[in-house]
């Protein structure tokens, strides 16, 4: 028994070692490929907004880049992304460097969840003082099958589990109640 366990432990350790050894030291992540840009003026700061996919479609994610003229050094700011269906402005998020394009701010692989107009509002602070500006973007209808179908497919395991538990419940009812 002990020998068998030791053998199994050795096998597991070997598999784990092979898995780790097979991991590439540096994985190739897709570079940010901007295919379309828009301009927005946030007070004294012109910002170039870049998109890795154009036109925008709801639910379809993409890279956004926000590049103020003169670079991001010495500047900070916030971004809100508010759909037209929402009456109040969405939560402010700090403008952060794009993880795969560190010289600009950005959002890595982010989707606009709703179809329709969205307002991107930038509030910047820098050497020329504070500034604010907004860009309106339109998200077209989402690609792919209807979301109702997608969600129906996604919940099949839950339905199966509930059905199984219901059958097991019925079959064990008498024994469970008898204690």
């Amino acid at each position, binding site marked *: *028994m002990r020998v068998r366990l030791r053998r*199994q432990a050795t096998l*597991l350790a070997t598999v784990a070692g092979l*898995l780790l050894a097979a*991991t*590439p*030291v*540096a*994985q190739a*992540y*897709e570079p940010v490929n901007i295919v379309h840009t828009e301009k927005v003026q946030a007070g004294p700061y012109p910002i170039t907004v870049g998109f890795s*996919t154009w036109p925008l479609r709801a*639910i*379809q*994610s*993409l890279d956004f880049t926000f590049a103020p003229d003169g670079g991001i050094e010495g500047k900070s700011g916030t971004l809100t992304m508010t759909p037209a269906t929402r009456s109040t402005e969405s939560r402010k998020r*700090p403008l*952060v*460097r794009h*993880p*795969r394009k*560190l010289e600009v701010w950005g959002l*890595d*692989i*982010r*989707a606009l969840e709703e179809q329709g107009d969205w307002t991107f509002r930038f509030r910047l602070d820098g050497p020329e003082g504070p500034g604010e500006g907004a860009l309106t973007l339109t998200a077209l209808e*989402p*690609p*792919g099958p209807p*979301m109702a179908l*997608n*969600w129906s*497919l*996604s*919940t*099949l*395991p*839950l339905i*199966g*589990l509930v059905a*199984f*538990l219901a*059958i*097991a*419940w019925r079959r*064990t009812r008498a*024994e*469970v109640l008898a*204690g």
Partner: protein
Amino acid sequence: MDLTAPGAHGVRAAATPRTAARGMPTAMALLAGSVLGLVGLTWDVQWHTDVGPDTFFTLPHLFIYAGSALSGLAALVAVLGATAAARAGRPLDPTVGGASVGVFGRTFTAPVGYLISGVGAAVFLLYGMWDLWWHGVYGFDAVIDSPPHIGLLLSGIVTMVGTIMVFAAAAEHRWGRVGTDVSIALTAANVTITVLGLTDVGGPVDAVHTAMAWLVVILLLTAAGFRPTRGGAVIMAGWLAVIQAVTWWFSPWAAYAYADAVGLPVRDYINGVPVMPALMPMALIAVALLIEPILKAARAHGNRWLPVAAGAVAGALVAALQGIQDSIVYTYPTPGPGTLLPTAVAGALLGALAGHLGWRFGHMLRLVNRTRPEGN
């Protein structure tokens, strides 16, 4: 699927030390698959929160899929072994995976725990393929609540339910009882992320915390109902605390080590909170201790309403305390009574239902091999 035991090679109880030893490696492989999956999931969530970029072939994803594959292979080995034994006319030991059922007529004979785990693992891989297609169409947006991700999480939970059954079937052995407690705690750790799909639900009740309370209380009461003596709820809560402590350390460490290895920076302005471990209720041991006397009375008197009351108490506490836990962990302002009270009431109502279901599920688990655990 034929849910009757194969008649020609009827299931007979034949528990011997030898069969117990034979059942343990496949059960442990099943459990190891669940552990690998949880490790990958906590790592993946932390990666997306603190580092970012995604492809299908990341190391955390490898852990997630390897975990499911290991569980699936363990289930396959067990089902093929049971099928071969049944065809050879050998007696099947129901403590190995539970009572057996015929699948596709009498083509296969499957211990029910392994059948459920195997189906979950197979469906998991199908959802994985769908997820790959999804990312091709919709991009690699790393959200937890996309349809394929929810399908993946749910099928992972199906596998874990099968794992619980496999260990429960071996409850006459110490490893079976311990494995049942650990499997239930692993399932609780996993379900915490699933409820984030309710993040956008508005209203005075915190839907995420209420749903989490419901699921965790079901599992807490399942653990309590399964164990014929007291302490089941506290032991399960203790295992969840162990999982929380380990992943609290592991997930940020692994995310940063992996980022370092692939040459990616950590995001700006991250708060460093271990995301998935922070979802797990921290006060569960205290809650479990609080309801143990109620459950003791339920056992003593066979009262069916006391587990409902215990579930209501636990549900209210878990749902309300989760808001306070979030405020401490993320340094938010503590939610006011306008949120906490309705959430506690909703938690109590759903907790009552969870208490009823969980207690019953625990008793059903005792019957998974149609024998009573003799331990304790």
